C-alpha cells in the first residue's frame, strides 16, 4: 500500500461525499425541467443537509441505542461502498477488502440496520416501511448479484478492480449477456434507490411510501446522515453501472495521463446517467406495491438469463 494509493483512496471518499448530493440535485433539476417546473438550484441538497445538521435531533421516548447508531452505520456502509467501486482509477488499495459479493453484503448490512431502526420506535409506519424495504431487498439483492456474477464470469474475477480493468479492455461491442444484465441492473437500481416506478422520493403519501416511511421518525443530524447515505447509495449504484457497462475512461493502475481525463469523463457519464434517470422517472408511473415483486422477479430472471446467455454463447 503506497502513499499514492492512500491518497487515491481518500480522494475517492471525498469525491463521493461531494458528488453524491450533487448528483441528487442534478436529477431533481432534470426532473423539474422535463416536467415544466422551475428547477431548484443544483446545490439544494447541500443546503438541505446543512439545515438538517443545524437542527436538533428529536428522538422518540423509548428509542434504544439501535435507533441512534443506525444512521452512522448506514452512512458508513454507503461511503465505504462508494469508495471501493472504481470511479476514477482501478488503483484502489482498499478494493481488495471487498469484492462484488462483499459489496452486496455491505448494502444488505445497511438495509438490515435501517429496517431494524425503523421498527425500533414501534409505530405503524415504521414497521410498514421495514417490511416493504425488506420485501424489495430480498428480491433486488439476488438480482444485483446475478448482474455482478455475469460480469464476474466474463472477466473471471469477482474483484471489482479486475472486472473494470478487464471490461474496459474489450472492444466496443455489445455483449448479449451484458445487455440482459444491463436491463436487470437498471431495474434493480430503480428499486434499490427508491425511485419511480417502485417508490417516489418526493412523496409523503402515507400508504405508498417505502424509503420515507423508514426514515419517518428521524430528524436533525440523523436524518441528514440518512439522506446523505441515500445520495451516496445512488452515487454508488451509478458508479457501479458505469463500471460494469461503460468502463471506458476509468484509469488503470499507474496510468497517470488517463487519470487527468478520468474526472471529466466520470462527470459526463454521471450527468448522462442522471438525465436518463430523470427521463425514466418522468415517463413512468409509480406501480402498486404488490406489482413490485413481479417487477423485481423479472429483474432477477433477466439476471439469470444473462448468466445463461454468457454460458451458452460464451459472450
Amino acid at each position, binding site marked *: 500500500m503506497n502513499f499514492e494509493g492512500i491518497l487515491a483512496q481518500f480522494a475517492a471518499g471525498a469525491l463521493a461525499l461531494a458528488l453524491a448530493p450533487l448528483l441528487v440535485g442534478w436529477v431533481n433539476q432534470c426532473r423539474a425541467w422535463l416536467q415544466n417546473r422551475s428547477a431548484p438550484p443544483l446545490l439544494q441538497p447541500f443546503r438541505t443537509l446543512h439545515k438538517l445538521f443545524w437542527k436538533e435531533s428529536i428522538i422518540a421516548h423509548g428509542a434504544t441505542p*439501535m435507533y441512534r447508531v443506525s444512521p452512522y452505520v448506514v*452512512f458508513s456502509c454507503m461511503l465505504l461502498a462508494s469508495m471501493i467501486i472504481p470511479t476514477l482509477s482501478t488503483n484502489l488499495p482498499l478494493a481488495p477488502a471487498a469484492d462484488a*459479493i462483499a459489496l452486496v453484503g455491505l448494502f444488505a448490512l445497511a438495509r438490515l440496520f435501517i429496517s431494524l431502526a425503523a421498527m425500533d420506535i414501534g409505530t405503524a409506519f415504521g414497521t410498514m416501511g421495514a417490511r416493504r424495504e425488506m420485501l424489495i431487498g430480498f428480491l433486488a439483492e439476488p438480482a444485483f448479484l446475478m448482474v455482478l456474477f455475469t460480469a464476474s464470469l466474463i472477466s473471471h474475477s*469477482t474483484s471489482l478492480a*479486475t472486472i473494470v480493468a478487464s471490461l474496459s479492455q474489450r472492444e466496443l461491442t455489445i455483449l448479449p449477456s451484458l445487455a440482459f444484465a444491463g436491463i436487470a441492473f437498471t431495474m434493480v437500481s430503480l428499486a434499490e434507490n427508491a425511485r419511480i416506478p417502485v417508490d417516489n422520493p418526493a412523496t409523503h403519501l402515507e400508504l405508498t411510501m417505502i424509503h420515507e416511511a423508514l426514515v419517518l421518525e428521524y430528524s436533525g443530524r440523523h436524518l441528514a446522515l440518512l439522506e446523505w447515505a441515500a445520495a451516496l447509495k445512488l452515487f454508488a449504484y451509478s458508479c457501479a453501472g458505469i463500471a460494469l457497462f461503460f468502463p471506458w475512461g476509468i484509469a488503470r493502475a499507474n496510468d497517470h495521463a488517463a487519470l487527468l481525463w478520468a474526472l471529466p469523463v466520470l462527470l459526463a457519464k454521471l450527468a448522462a446517467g442522471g438525465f436518463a434517470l430523470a427521463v425514466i422517472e418522468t415517463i413512468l408511473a409509480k406501480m402498486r406495491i404488490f406489482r413490485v415483486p413481479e417487477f423485481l422477479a423479472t429483474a432477477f430472471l433477466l439476471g439469470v438469463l444473462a448468466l445463461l446467455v454468457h454460458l451458452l454463447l460464451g459472450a
Partner: protein
Amino acid sequence: MSSPLLAIDAAMIVIAAWIAIGLAGVAAIRSFRVVAFILFPASAALSIALAGIGFAALPAAPEVAILAIGLPDLPFHLRLDPLAAFFLVILGLASAGISVFAGGYFRAGEGTPPGVMCLQYHMFLVGMAMVLLSDDAYAFMVSWELMALASFFLVTTNHRIPEIQRAGYLYLLIAHIGAIAILLCFGVLQANTGDYTFANMRAQRLPPLWASAAFLLALFGFGAKAGILPLHIWLPEAHPAAPSPVSALMSGVMLKTAIYGLARVTFDLIDTPLWWWGVVALVLGLVTALFGAVFAAAQVDMKRLLAYSSIENMGLIVMGMGLAIVFAAYNMPSLAALALTAMLYHCLNHAIFKSLLFLGTGSVLHATHERSLGKLGGLMRSMPWVAVTVLVGVIACAGLPPSNGFVSEWLLLQSFLFTGGLPNPYLKMLVPIFAAGVALVAALAGYVMVKFYGVIFLGRPREEKIAREARDAGGLERLGLAWLAAGCVLLGLFPVAVMEVLDPVPFTLLGRGLAQSGRVGDWLLLAPVSAERASYSPLLLIVLTLAIMLFAFFMVRRLYHGNIRRAAPWDCGFPAQTSRMQDSAEGFGQPIRQIFEPFYRMRRELPSPFDAAPRYRVDVEDPMWRWIYLRIAAATERTSRVVGMLQRGRISIYLLYSFVTLVALLFLTQA
C-alpha cells in the same frame, strides 16, 4: 506409541468424565444448585478441552483405538482422523457455550427433574462424540441410537403436554427410519465380507451400482437427521418442544453429525463419488434451502422460525457437499477442496450462530413465558445483554459482513462461480442456476432475521405484562451467550486462520487442501484462488466501517452540535397509536406469503367489515404433511385393515389357519 497421551485417549477421558457428570447429576437429584452451578460449568470446561483435543488432532495423523465393550469378539473400533477432529471442535466449541447457559437455564419444577436431565444431556453429548469417533458400523449405530434416544428424552422434558408427546413420537419415528437406512448403507458397504469395520469398507471397491445404492441410502438416512426435504418434518416440531439449550444442541451440533456421516460415507468409505450424486445433493439441497427460508418467513413461533431457518442452512450445507462431489468426481481437486471447505466452514458457523439464537430465545422464554412472536416486542430495553448478543447472531444468520455467516456464504458462492472447467456442458450451465438459488436463499434469510429480531426485541411490547416482568438473563446465561457471540465475531474476522486449521480435512479426503498449496491468503486478506480473482478482508472492512462511523460522529459534533430532544413519536401526526398497531409476526411475513402463496397450505379467517367481533387468523401448514405423510398414513391404515380381516377373534379360525399352513408346507417339502 511415541507420545505419552494420544489425542484419542484424551477424547475418551473427556467422554468418560461426561458420563461421570451425568451420573453425579442423578446422585444429586434433589440439590438443584449442585447441578446448575457445579456440574454444568464443569461439563463446559470439558467441552473446551474436547475442542482443544480436536484442534490438536486436526493436523496429526489418524489415531485408532479399540474399546473392548459390547458383545464378545465385537469391540468398538475408534478412530480420530482430521474429519472427526474437525467435528469434535464444532461439538466442543458449541457445547461449551450451551452447557454454561444450561447451568443457568434449567430450573427445578419443570417436567423432568434437573438431575435426570443432567444425565440425559450428557448422554446426548457422549452419543454425539462417540458417533464422531466410531470406526465400525456397530459402534456407529450404537452411538447413533444413544444420541437419538437421549435427545428424544430431552425433547419430551415437559412430557405432560400432549403436543410435546406428539413431537417426541414423530422425532423418534423419523430418527429410526433414518437409522434403518444407515444400517442398510453399511450393509451394502461391507460388500458381503461380513466385516463391519470402516477399515474394511475403505478397502472395498464397490461397483458403481452398489456404490450408488450406498450413497442414496446414506443420503436418505443422514438426510432424515439433517432435515433434508421431505424428511424435515420432525424438525419444526421437535425444536420448539425441547428446552432451549437442547434445541441449541440439536440444531447446532446434532444436525452436523448427519453431515459428518454423509461426508464420511461419500468421501472416505466409498471414496470414488459419481458426478450425478452431486447433482442429486445439489437439487435436494436447493429445494430444502428454499423451502426452509420461505417457511421460516411465515412462522409466528420464534423457535419454529429458527427450526425452519436451520432447515434452510442444512440445505445450503448439502449444496456445498453436492458441489464438492461434482468436482471430486470430475477430478478437479482444488475446486472440490474449495467447496468442501465452504461447506465445513458453514457447518462450524451454523453450529455457533444457531446455538446462540436458540439460547437467546431460551432467555426470552424464561423472561416472558411467551414463545409467540405476536405477544413479544421491545425486549431490547429490559434485556439489553440478550438483545446485543442475539443481534450478533442475527447478523451472522442473515449472512452479512463482517460476521462468520458471510464468510462461508462467500466461499460457497465463489465455488459456484468458478466452474468453467467442468467437462459436462449441461452441468456447467446448471451450476450458476444453483448460485442464483443460493443468492435468493441468503436474501430471504435476511428478511427472516429482521422479522425475528425486530418483532422480539424492537418496537413496543405487544402485551402489557411483558414490559413489566421481563428481566435480563442471569450470569451463567450471559456467559454462554457471550461465548457464542464472540465465536461469531472471531470466526468472521479471521477466516484465513480458520481455513488453515480445517485444511487437513479436505487434504485427507480429497488429496488436496487449499492452504496446503498456499492459496488462502494472508492474515488480513482472504483470497482462496488469487487476489486478482476474488478477495475479502473482514478485518479491514470492520475497521474502515468503524473509522468512518467515528469520523462522522466527531465531525458532526465538531462542525455542528450534538443536541437531542425527547418527544412522543411522530408517526405522521397520528395521535392515538397503540402498540397493537405495529406489525404482528403474521403481518411482517405477509408479503412473502403473498409471493409464495402456491407453496403454502393456508387456512385464513378474514373478518368482513361488518363483523362485530372481528378475528383475523391465518394458519400455515407444511404441505409435505398432505402430500406425503398423510398419504403414507392412509395407505398403512388401508393395508392394516385388509390384514385385519384375517383376524376374526375365534380360536377355530386360527386353528384352521395353522392347519392350512401346515398342509401347504407339507406340499412344499414334497415337491
